[in-house]
Each structure stands twice: as C-alpha cells, then as structure tokens.
C-alpha cells in the first residue's frame, strides 16, 4: 500500500516538473522562432483606449535579421493623410521614420525586442522572478497556439500571457495582466503567413519627395554623472543601461537609467530641480504605464515603466545622493 502511494507521488512530481520545464521550453522555442523564421502578417496592438494595426515583414537571411513594420492606422491632419510610420530593423539597429508636421523624422535606436520577438533568448533573468505555467490550446490568426502564463513571484511586476504557435513556436499573441486580472496591453496577429522567398526588395522606406527628412537629435553619452546611487531596487530588477538624455528646453542632460527584470522595464530620470520651476510629485497611470515623481536632495526624480505602481514608487524613493545637493554644487 505504502509503496503504491510512493510511486503515485513520484509520478505526480515528475509530471509537474515536466510541465514546468515544458512551459519554459515553449517560451524558449518561441524566442528563437520569432527571430529565425520568415513571415509576413498584420498584428493589432492595444494599450488603454489606443489601438494600432501594424503590418510586419520579417526575414532571416543567413543570420541577418531584417524587419519592416508599417503602422496602418494613421491620423489625418488638415484633410491630408499622414505618411505612415515605418520601423526598419537590421540586426540590432532600428530606424524609425515618423511623420511630424511637414517633416519626416528619422530616429535611430538599438537593441530592442520588437514584437513578436518580445521574449529575450536568454530566459535566466525571467526565471528568477516569474513562474511559467502551461495553459490551454487556442486558435490565433487561424493558427493553433499553446498558452503559457508567466506569473510573477511578487507584486513588483505584472503577469504575461503568451500564445505560441504549436507548430513553429512563433509568438502569436501576448497580453499584460495586472493583479486584478485586467488586461492592460494586448498585441496579437490577425493574419500571418510564412514566407518562402529571400527577396529583400521590401526592405526600403517609401520616400515622400514632398517632405524633408531630418535626423532626430543624437543623444550625448559623455556627460554621465554618478553622484547618486539606487540603494533599494525592487527584487529581480537590474540596471541594463545608463544614458544621458538631451531634452529640449533643458540646459543640462538628464540621466536616464533603465532597469529590467528580463521582460518588464523601468526608466529612472534624474535631474537637478530648475530655478522657478515647480517640482513634480505624485503618481499617475497612462494605459499600461505607471509614472511616479519625487524630489530628493534638490533633484527631480521621474520613474516610468510598464510595471505596477508599487515598483515605480519604490524606485522613486530608492535613490540617495553621495555628496552635495544639486544646489551646493553650483
């Protein structure tokens, strides 16, 4: 009798551990599939009350990733449809062409995980803060998908629900869910097809000859200050980047520090208070983004992230300054 129970318990444990491993395996496969496959489709992104449809073309030619995203919904200003915003990425380099009044602004970025490659290929950081659970099977954009839930181990991050193509592993849908089980953000394919060609003709922006193209001001990175230290980060978050941000109308560059737990990210902005300007305090939420402002030692701190309010609030209090205050320094 005892032996039977023991065997049954053992079987249960092994089934459970297999299921957990399997959930991480699905995520791992999904992270690679989004980067390695050739596909074209339309996905819809919803955040708060805003919705956008985006056409995506993705190709991996011998290890070189090429992606084009064209935003299909556009505002119409003064009777004229705006040129759509286009996002091109080649490897880690991202170039965004976005209309702004009579100009097209060219913006350069680096190293972001764009949909459907939202999951990093290295899942180690995520594994420490989340538990992965296999869910049901569902159809998304006509494809069968395995649901995986990423449930946070504490209150400093939201839940993620991921639909991965059962055949190819491609991420088909992803939602961001808060502790009250409300969906804050949703991104999903409406249509999707695999590509067989290696033709790269699509990889060039549509040029509007009527508009002038301007580069967005580059960011200076040589004036980073380190008078501060973040002492009490919410567990699981680590600094991934630190840059000096040039903001129009501000004399000194603003420090931007980015923290991530592997999937969720938070930016901390530090700047000295300006004479005659009101310091900002308090908390607000826009769609899935929480924002918290605080003042410490004559510095204005602003924390922005797609994370719960508790996380931005803790980071806004966690900064301490090593030496003098902002005003003694001058």
């Amino acid at each position, binding site marked *: 009798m005892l032996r039977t129970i023991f065997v049954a318990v053992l079987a249960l444990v092994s089934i459970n551990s297999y299921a957990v491993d399997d959930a991480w395996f699905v995520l791992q496969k999904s992270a690679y599939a989004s980067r390695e496959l050739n596909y074209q489709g339309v996905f819809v*992104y919803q*955040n708060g009350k*805003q919705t*956008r449809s985006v056409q995506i073309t993705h190709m991996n030619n011998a290890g070189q990733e090429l992606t084009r*995203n064209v*935003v299909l919904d556009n505002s119409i200003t003064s009777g004229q449809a705006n040129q759509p*915003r286009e996002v091109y990425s080649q490897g880690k380099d991202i170039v*965004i062409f*976005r209309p*702004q*009044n009579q100009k097209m602004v060219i*913006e350069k*970025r680096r*190293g*972001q*995980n*764009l949909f459907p490659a*939202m*999951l*990093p290929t290295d899942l180690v950081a995520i594994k420490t803060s989340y538990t992965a659970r296999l869910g049901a099977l569902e159809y998304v954009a006509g494809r069968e998908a395995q649901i995986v839930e990423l449930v946070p181990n504490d209150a400093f991050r939201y839940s993620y629900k991921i639909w991965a193509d059962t055949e190819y592993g491609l991420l088909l849908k992803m939602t961001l869910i808060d502790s009250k089980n409300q969906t804050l*953000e949703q*991104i999903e394919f409406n249509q999707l097809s695999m590509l067989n060609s290696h033709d790269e003709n699509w990889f060039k922006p549509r040029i509007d000859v009527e508009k002038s193209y301007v580069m967005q001001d580059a960011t200076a990175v040589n004036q980073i200050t380190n008078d501060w230290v973040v002492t009490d980060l919410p567990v699981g978050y680590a600094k*991934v*980047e630190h*840059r000096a941000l040039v*903001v*129009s109308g501000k004399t000194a560059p603003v420090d*931007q520090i*980015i923290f*991530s737990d592997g*999937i969720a*990210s*938070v*930016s901390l*902005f530090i700047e000295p*208070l*300006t*004479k*005659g*300007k*009101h*310091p*900002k*305090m*308090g*908390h*607000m939420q*826009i*769609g*899935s*983004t929480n*924002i*918290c402002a605080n*003042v410490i030692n*004559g510095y204005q701190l*602003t924390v*922005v*992230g*797609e994370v719960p309010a508790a996380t931005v609030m803790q980071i806004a209090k966690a900064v301490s300054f090593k030496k003098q205050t902002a*005003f003694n320094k001058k």
Partner: protein
Amino acid sequence: MKDQLSALIDGEFDIESSEHLITSVKSGGELKGCWTHYHLIGDTLRGDIGRGGVQMSHDFSQRVMSALESEPALLALNGQNQTLISNKQSYNTPRVWSVAASVAAVMFVGVMVLQQQLNQPEALAPVEIAQSVPTEYLQAHQAAAPSNAAYYIQTANYTEPRQ
C-alpha cells in the same frame, strides 16, 4: 547721473569717462551735495565715523531722511533692475555694500527676496505629476526599454508637435 556718481565712489565707474561727473561736482549744486552724502554714508558703513574721522553733525539723520524722501520710490522693480541686481550680486564677492544700494534700502530687501528664491527652489509648491504629463520621458523610456510595443501608438497618443 547720481547712479554714476555712486558707482564712481565705489570704484565701479571708469575714471577716464567720469570727467563730466567731476565737473558737475566742482560746479556745486545738487551733485556736490550727493558727493558729500555718499562719502559720508560710505565712511559710516566702513566704521570710520567717530574714530578720528569725520564727526557726524547733529542734523545728520534728518538730512538722510529728507534725502530718502526726495529719492524716487523703488518699490516696483522693473525687469531691467532685477537683472542688474542679480548680476551685481554675483560679481561682487567679497560682498562690499554698494552705497547706492544702502541708500535705497528697498532695493536691498528686493535682493534678499531674489536670493531666497535662487537658493530655495523647493519653496515653490510641488505640483502633481498628473497636471503635466512628462511626454518627453515617456518617449525616452519607450525608446530605450528592452521590450516595448508602445511606440506604435506613442506619437498619436502622447506627443504634442514639437515645432
């Protein structure tokens, strides 16, 4: 002209171009009175009076008071004056009281208020972040976050046209 004279006494006026002042003082009249007054005030501030220096006459305070009354009121500082004061304040270290400023006590109070504002920006009441959404920071966050989809809606939603 009184300002120039005061500056000349404080050593802040170019002596080369002060010939007209000297001539006016020599010729007597109002400017000569000022010359005497300013020197007397300067001596008083430096503590020279009574220590073998000039003896104060009995109607001294009366004469200062009447001079103050006849000075134009400086209660309402215009923008130009304010910049003048703040510049002067920052350049004059070690802080020697200018004669003109000590005569116009009201101006001095103005400087104090101005200085307090410069040194204590926290004194301004904080405003709720919701009152003014930091759009530039939302964009900067979305531009740098390792995984983010919000930039697809960003411009239409948050960005006001930046010229």
